[in-house]
């Protein structure tokens, strides 16, 4: 029996008709059309489906959509504000915190939930928190670097790029030009 449900996603209300067992992941992707949230493992292990509900990080593949009525749901699509990227999005772009991009929305949402609650986590705290989000491409080094760049205020608000990519790419190249061709050893951890 389908039920009428109202979900508040990224500040916008969506009226949908869903079965009571509909998962939040599928309601977001298939009923509302917000496909930025990804399905990786379907059992709440990989973190690709991470979203926040009333600020709390959840695996949307384990959450019933119907239980989220009256709550504020935030997905990757809700992060950029006033036409500009969120500092975490900007950091992932600049520091290469992604490759294939499939886990990236979940990584960014997880990092956002962490920093919203604790703007100054230590590197160890970031590692522990972010270990709930699997990535098979990066080896995590550049994800850690991206998150720490925001923690350390290396991403300045005035540098946040506009969402339109054509303009942005011109700027992003400027960001990098002076650093060319230094292949020295780089330590992490």
């Amino acid at each position, binding site marked *: 029996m389908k039920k009428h449900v109202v979900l508040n996603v990224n500040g916008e209300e969506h009226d949908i008709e869903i079965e009571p067992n509909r998962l939040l992941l599928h309601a977001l992707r298939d009923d509302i059309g917000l496909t930025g949230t*990804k399905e990786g493992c379907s059992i709440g292990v990989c973190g690709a489906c991470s979203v926040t509900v009333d600020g709390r990080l959840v695996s949307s593949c384990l959450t019933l959509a119907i239980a989220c009525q009256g709550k504020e749901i935030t997905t990757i699509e809700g992060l950029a504000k006033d036409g500009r990227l969120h500092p975490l999005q900007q950091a992932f772009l600049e520091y290469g915190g992604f490759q294939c991009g499939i886990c990236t929305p979940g990584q960014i949402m997880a990092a956002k939930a962490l920093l919203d609650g604790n703007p100054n986590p230590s590197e160890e705290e970031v590692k522990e928190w972010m270990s709930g989000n699997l990535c098979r491409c990066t080896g995590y080094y550049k994800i850690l670097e991206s998150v720490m760049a925001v923690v350390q205020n290396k991403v300045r608000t005035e540098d946040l790029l506009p969402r339109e990519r054509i303009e942005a790419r011109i700027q992003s190249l400027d960001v990098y030009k002076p650093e060319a*061709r230094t292949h020295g*050893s780089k330590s992490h951890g």
Partner: protein
Amino acid sequence: MAEAEKFSVVGHRVTRVEGYEKVTGEARYVGDLQLPGMLIGRILRSPYPHARILNIDTSKAEKLRGVKAVVTAEDTVKRPWGAFFADQYPLSVGKVRYVGEEVAAVAALDPDVAEEALNLIEVEYEELPAVFDAEEAMQEGAPLVHEGKARNIAMTIDVERGSVERAFAESDVIVEDTFESIPQWHCAIETIGSVADYAPNGKYTIHMNTQTLFSARMRVAAALGVRETDVRIIQAAVGGGFGGKSCDDNNPIVAAILARKARKPVKVINSREEEFLAGSRPRVNMKTWIRMGFKKDGQIRAKHLRIIADNGAYSGKAPAITGVAALRHDTCYKYSDVKTQAYLVYTNKIPTGAFRGFGNPSAEWAVEQAIDEAAHELGIDPLEIARVNAAEPGYVSPHGNRVTSCELKQCIDMAEKMMDWKQKRAAKKPKTGLGLACTVHVSGKRHFGDYDGSSATIKINEDGKALILSGEGEVGQGAATALCQIAAEELGIPMEDVEFSQADTDLTTFCLGAFGSRLTYVAGNAVKDAAAKAKQQILEMASEMLEASPDDLMVEGGKVYVKGAEAKAVTVADVARARLFRRSGAPIVASGSFDADSVLPDETRYGNESGAYNFACQAAEVEVDTETGQVKVLKYVAASDCGTVINPIGAEGQVEGSVAQGLGYALIEGLRMEEGRPINPNFSDYRLPSMRDMPALAHAFAKSYEPTGPFGAKGLGELGMDPTAAVISNAIFDAVGVRVRTLPITPEKVLKALTEKGKS
């Protein structure tokens, strides 16, 4: 090398051309696609490792409300297909040979109905004796996986160069050992999936997350029994490949068969369990017996390998992978007398296939440990034995591989320095040890016909922006960005004015796709050639406009200047418009191509498999807890020779990701199987490294320039994965004097080895 300093785009840290879509969640992966009237497809899989299909009754499933198509082998041309051996069907014909094999499929209005319909399909099986171990499968009288394949042997390699008998006789020290690797799954966070559509004119359009579009087209067309151009493959954003999405599985073919029968678009996305069972084909597991002879100074004199490779039920790319495991390492060090016998053997298990490293990690797991054993026996620093044997520019391997650029020795020096190797060895702490290993990899590989090339078209639009039309695709590794950098550098236009097309077999020329660490080198050369030709057209037109000889012109920052009179300039956009909007006008468009100067190996496997070879040296410092057997990697270093680094962000990312996969392979990953049935096909039990598992990592790139590469570049994508497992095992031996000879190196195995050592 001085030239390298002048690059304006190549070598710079450039953000991804598709980065915006990815950080905002707007990149479109195959699972995100919706077409009008689209149905959801699901596949019924064999529950048995080996069985005869006596009957399939689909009548109940067909009657279920919401079901639009049910298909079995009867809806196919029953034509087997495969990358090297045509040994598998899209849907089982008469027999199933592993748990997970595709038997039937349904397309329905929604996933729940599709699942229900699968339960209504009645399949009558007659179970057959099965074989799960490659060595048992080779015995006379073992159950045959495929009729006519005696002793289940799919392929044999038997190669000897020089005389190992003589060389062993001349050796001062001989080591002999046996090592076993494991199948490793790609575990891309995105599973394999397709959205297939069928038009009344007989054309299939398949949106896929494949790494190799044109190979996919070839194989899908063969399996469907149609011509190549009756199939159009369009690449969606790819959520991780690592070899697993190089189209050796049936997903797109089943989607196409369903779409034709339902006359509607059908989406088939593998669940995570299906991905383990029959999606991305795991790394070929090998049992390797090795015997090596050395001179007193550490120089390698002889090597004899005997490899038994477990193919699983169908071949895919395992024949080529076994070939790499058998012979590739002979390009890493200076070898003279080598012998390899390798057997690829069918079993009733999940078919194996291409995974980053392509046979190299499995072989190096054995070879690099044998060399380490020799170093200890000879009392030589393992770093010095690597140095003594390291390949150099001009080296020709016993199998004909010709090394052009090679900075392996520089890599060894860098690894030594980053690890503080000498100091740490001198002040060795108990239970702490150092290990290292070296590797070689290709930059593209000549094995699909006598072709190791690429082609690309560049068009300069009326606004001055260049579009690269390439069928190579982007799978997340950053190829699109590197290729745009190469085009921008050659054309003299800004990076942001270069775009990379979506790969589409109808719109681009033939490309082999992403495998064999080939895109930067092979596709990069083709893009560079196209860019040079497009630039020539720009210069010719500009020469009319500026009334100067083309030789006196230069293109920089998107403008064409007269050298020495920089005020005299036109923009590339002006030039493009001027060439188009006039009588007999024409767009600026040029096609380029490249075929590597490699040689297809002959029937004795003598040739030169790649146009350029990449090298690396990696080292680790580990600490072993002798109470628990737990291994902690304290520090990891990776030094790589990939020629000119095109994009440092991308290059670093390739090495970092490779090392992570290598550490997973070495220490934690593994699928447990019972009678061919996987016990843990999910992410809670098949553990992947997470952020807290990653050790401190230092890496560096050698100063290197490949003369045949685009701006001096060569491949990198797989290099970092090859030696890692051996590096860790060698470090454990140095720490506590035990060696675990089967992967993964679990605490239980370390503890058992320590206990046994204590007894003896």
